[in-house]
């Protein structure tokens, strides 16, 4: 029986990734270490000196570790849905070539989502290992925190792809990163509690997928219960993944099968 063709797209992406995997694995290890040292230990020593009770009851390093895990997953997801996608449909048109085969638009998009979330998974697992290496949480707990990170990353692949397939030039993507991705990275509760934000801004932070992932990951790592019930946040992230996935199909089809 024929294997679902989206797995063939997954396989193709893996073949393409093989070309650059060394550099990619290296930076997947280096990034979390840099963040942990600079923010967790560097800034953390100042924070902890001023807040004897810790941030939300834990040392700053412990507070931000799950946050940066999810923030990195978020950023990885957004990146996977951006230039590579636009290249495939606009520049080298390799996505177009795939549609001359039995693969359809939906299979193409699903394969892309699967591969991209595998990339997020990979990056997050490495991050979790580093977290436990810094003795912030046991390995098992850190690995458990990978689950919300992957949900957030996949939600961002989905949303970013839905944005990218509507672009006619490269001009929109830098703006998207500047005004959506970077603010989300900074203000969704990874580096400080969203309650520190002005009241009117808080709903925006809570609406981001990243906020929900940060809350879940932090709850797992510091053994607290999240501000919002875990199943509500999970459901919210799934809505992002599926909703934006569906929103991407139409423009992609229009683009590749005019």
């Amino acid at each position: 029986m024929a294997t679902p063709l989206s797995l063939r797209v997954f396989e193709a992406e893996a073949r393409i990734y093989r070309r650059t995997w060394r550099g990619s694995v290296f930076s997947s290890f280096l990034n979390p270490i840099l963040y942990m040292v600079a923010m967790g230990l560097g800034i953390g020593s100042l924070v902890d000196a001023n807040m004897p009770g810790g941030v939300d009851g834990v040392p700053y390093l412990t507070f931000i570790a799950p946050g940066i895990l999810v923030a990195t997953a978020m950023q990885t997801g957004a990146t996977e849905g951006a230039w590579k996608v636009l290249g495939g449909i606009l520049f080298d048109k390799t996505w177009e070539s795939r549609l001359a085969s039995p693969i359809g638009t939906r299979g193409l998009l699903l394969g892309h989502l699967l591969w991209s979330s595998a990339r997020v998974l990979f990056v997050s697992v490495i991050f979790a290992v580093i977290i436990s290496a810094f003795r912030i949480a046991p390995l098992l707990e850190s690995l458990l925190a990978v689950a919300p990170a992957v949900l957030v990353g996949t939600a961002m692949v989905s949303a970013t792809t839905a944005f990218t397939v509507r672009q006619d030039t490269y001009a929109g993507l830098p703006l998207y990163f500047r005004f959506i991705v970077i603010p989300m990275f900074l203000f969704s509760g990874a580096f400080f509690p969203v309650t520190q934000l002005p009241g009117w801004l808080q709903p925006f932070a809570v609406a981001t997928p990243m906020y929900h992932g940060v809350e879940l990951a932090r709850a797992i790592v510091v053994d607290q219960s999240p501000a919002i019930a875990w199943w509500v946040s999970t459901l919210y992230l799934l809505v992002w993944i599926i909703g934006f996935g569906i929103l991407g199909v139409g423009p992609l089809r229009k683009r590749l099968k005019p």
Partner: protein
Amino acid sequence: MQDLIKATGLTKMFGDFTAVDGIDFSVSQGETFGFLGPNGAGKTSTMRMIGATSPVSGGELTVLGLDPQADGPRLRSRLGVVPQENNLDDELSVYDNLMMYGRYFDMPRADIKAKISELLEFVQLTDKKDAKVQTLSGGMKRRAVIARGLVNTPDVFILDEPTTGLDPQARHILWDRLYRLKQQGVTLIITTHYMDEAEQLCDRLVVMDDGKIVAEGSPSGLIDEYAPGEVVELRFPVGVLETLNGQIEQLAPRTEILADRALLYTRDAEHTIASLTAQGLEPETVLARRSTLEDVFLRLTGRTLVE
């Protein structure tokens, strides 16, 4: 003979714009069928509809007995496509590109591997198997795309402007390979705006202009019908052609005055050249040749046509 492809009133609209305007044609097994026409004639849109990568706006189309709308994936699994642009992954090797593509057809890796060796042999790229695509010349890339299109052993091979942008030598290598495919009985569909390409390869062709089919036949049949006999091509120094009002037209039953030259359609080129001298005309160059599809096209589309 059974029709592999049959179109009736086939139409493609983009909003208000009609790219393909109700065309009829059929292609039978083993035939090499051409769509000849200038850029924007609707050739690529037609090809994409046949290849089930663009929805049909109107009319009927069956390819290999299947409806491209309803049976897209099943149909595409039996087609080979060479698109106008080489959409290979530039940073992967030729082998990886072909392997990746074969996997889209759900073929087992071992089968694809064997097929790749065979195809690279066929397109004369065996020694470039592990070379990155971006290091290949234009002609080699084109041959790699042709090999990619043949990975799934298609029943119909669709080529959209296979040699556009290639140098003459590269074109001849490609024509030779396509001719061999034809000899093997593969049904080829080709679009081109090169008249010589259509003459070299096509058993039968349609001439398209502005979304419509303006003529259909074999290359020689079309020439006999629309541009019989011989052609005398005259070139004059810049500015002279405009001063000869009426003189050229008297030299042959049908003439075409183009921007840079005059074409005289005649039964007997020698006789026409003789009368040229008798008239006291002194063109810079005089060339007698047989009519080609280019002359057919000029006649049919009426561009710069002077009766």
